[in-house]
């Protein structure tokens, strides 16, 4: 393994930890709004780290470009869908959890 592979592995494993956190939040958080927080933010960072981790190993610039394109599209989709779900939930009168 060369140094690049170690860097790539570290980034991929850290990314996986964020995906785990997103899923854990989805299971542990009490209502739809807090669960959306966990999903959008943790998965965004998890995917970002995986994209960088894979880009380190990429053989050409077009592969790096494709990976960044995927991240960007997921970012937009995640943020706008989270907003739509939250606004739909509020309009249907789904109460937010309070401690």
């Amino acid at each position, binding site marked *: 393994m060369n140094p690049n592979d170690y860097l790539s592995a570290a980034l991929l494993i850290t990314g996986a930890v964020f995906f785990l956190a997103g899923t854990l939040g989805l299971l542990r958080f009490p209502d739809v709004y807090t669960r959306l927080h966990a999903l959008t933010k943790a998965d965004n960072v998890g995917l970002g780290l995986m994209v960088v981790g894979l880009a380190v190993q990429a053989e050409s610039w*077009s592969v790096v470009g494709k990976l960044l394109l995927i991240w960007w599209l997921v970012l937009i989709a995640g943020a706008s869908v*989270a*907003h739509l779900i939250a606004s739909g939930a509020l309009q249907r009168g789904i109460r937010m959890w309070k401690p």
Partner: protein
Amino acid sequence: MDNSKTSWPSILVRASLFALIWSVLSGGATASWWIGIPAVLLAVIVSVALIPPTPLVWSEILRFAPFFLQRSLLGGTDVAWRAFHPRRPIAPDLIEYPLQLQPGLPQVFMVNTVSLLPGTLSAVLEHNVLKVHVLDRQKNVVAELKALEQIVARMFDTSLNIS
């Protein structure tokens, strides 16, 4: 019309962005441009029809990028910590934030970015008021939203009108 004069640069920027995306997708194969050029042209036409060309300040976009990367990393770490913590420390609240940005693209951009910042989620946008769900009411979210709003206004070269 004065309008058409200002929109050409931004149409050119869009065309080069779409061309860049095509060259990334096709892996730079020369023959692929027989399909690529019509596809890019169609994409430009559709994008101009859907979103009217707006002037963008590129130096401000370059300044937005590190801000966004840093905040989203912080936001992910923050929510991950709360998810892993045995006592699950959250104290959610819903706050109302009156937007001073122009309706349209600047507001949409702001709404989407807010959901990726630490501890905030855009819930409803109505009559220029954004309802934001916050994960921890102890945090000073309003200052963060104000800072973001100012950056977005500079990116789209618009002023914040006092409502």
